[in-house]
């Protein structure tokens, strides 16, 4: 892609990231940080390409380390985010507990 197109992509993606996060309630900050940590695990595809084109032993060694680390970022990020989000339930979903907002005495 040409430089200027790349620059446009960069700018628009930056605004997108800002907008998507700006409406997040505090209760989701930690899972969201974890989720965005997972998203940059996309570095895995870059590491795969780098290792896939490596020729010398040095390039291959660094490439393997890169793929190992990137896979760890992607999978680890997914697992912990999923574990955290899986626990978020509303009181409606729990069913049997009425009167949580109304203190009828």
């Amino acid at each position, binding site marked *: 892609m040409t430089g200027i197109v790349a620059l446009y992509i*960069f700018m628009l993606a930056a605004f997108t990231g800002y907008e998507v996060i700006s409406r997040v309630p505090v209760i989701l900050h930690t899972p969201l940080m974890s989720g965005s940590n997972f998203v940059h695990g996309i570095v895995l595809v*870059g590491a795969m390409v780098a290792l896939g084109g490596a020729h010398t032993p040095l390039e291959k060694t660094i490439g393997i380390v890169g793929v190992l*680390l990137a*896979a760890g970022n992607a999978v680890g990020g997914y697992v912990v*985010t999923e574990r955290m989000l899986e626990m978020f339930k509303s009181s409606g979903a729990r069913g049997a507990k009425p009167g949580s907002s109304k203190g009828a005495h």
Partner: protein
Amino acid sequence: MPADAAPLGANTLIQASYFVTAALFILGLKRMSSPVTARSGIWWAGAGMLVATLVTFTFPGMSNYELIIPAIVVGSLLAWWSGKRVAMTNMPQMIALYNGMGGGAAAAIAAVELYRGESQGYAISILAVVGGIIGAVSFSGSAIAFGKLQGLITRSIRFKGQQIFNLVLLLVALIAGALVALHLNAAPAVVSAFFALALLLGVTMTLPIGGADMPVVISLYNALTGLAVAFEGFVLNNAAMIIAGTVVGSAGTLLTQLMARAMNRSLGNVLFSGFGDTGGAPTGEVTGSLKPIEASDVGVMMAFAQKVIVVPGYGMAVAQAQHKIWELCQLLIDRGVTVKFAIHPVAGRMPGHMNVLLAEAGVPYDLISDLDEINSEFETADVALIIGANDVVNPVARNDKSSPIYGMPILNADKARNVIVIKRGKGAGFSGIENALFYLDNTRMLYGDAQKAGAELIQAIKAVG
């Protein structure tokens, strides 16, 4: 993107798949920003990652599959295993660890490109170098952050002129990077020196920062890794990496600012001062005395209350008392008492961490309120139950200008009719500051481990019948 601009552009399937991946990532993050849809958000993003990874195997000119596949399998299995068994209280440092790995991977991509030394034009080399230094700093810095929160590194190492030292280190690293990027001297030794300096910089930047500030630092490194990934995406002409990396870079920066603001710190302050874990000379004197109370009396008080607000802190999570406390609250709710949880942004180790810990115990998220929502409600509460929280309810933050936490937004627990503090001993808080709340006329201290105190309170309420 003209198809002939790069060999990578040739493969329509790959480009189309990366397009879908970028869309799935953005939609996934969007869904993660509401508690109702959050869970499906990670599935969407996960689907995007799977598509991108699988399609990359068909990349033109790829070889070394016998190395790629085992590396992916080993890295994935280790991360899967560790991610499944980490306790919720240790989540922040685990995020730091995985984030550091991403930064290291970005630096590795840069290293492969720079060691190869094929001339790709100045713009590409500069981007590779910048992404490389950011990724390397994020890698070693996150490792230190992990070590600190995990308790492997207990001291904050500081020495005189440390900031000058770091600045010099940064400058030397940048000079080495410039030599490489501008094709002045791209000998392997210079490339190695560049990466070694960058890794060292991450360590020396992070070591002096105290444990309390670590969440902000982790969030910052998360944003930096995103940026490094985006820069290496430019180097590899990979749109999925550019978009995902940039989105995380900007979102992470905003998140870092929100966290720093919640802790009443500026980012510069976090990085360049070092308040985070000062032993804290307690300032300002406190008058009054600590007044103990028995669990049975607290049980009666809460059972006949209209409204109880629970203020949990990290101490509760460490004692693993959230299940007991939720059991207690369910008893109260069944009696018709209104129960709410008030969460300070830094109640856990980072904003939102306490919500995760409560959710783990089964507390529905609509009973949980943040500082802005709940603060006006303390005046109408009969009981504010403080469990393992300290600095976030300390009224000196409102009025004692000499206090290190002055100006930090706090929960107005002192406005409640009765304040019950469950506390293990008489020590001061994380910052070492005496808590004026404990000495107020309407405050009673219930001494003991949060878990044990919770069990006693449950007995007491059951005894009321």
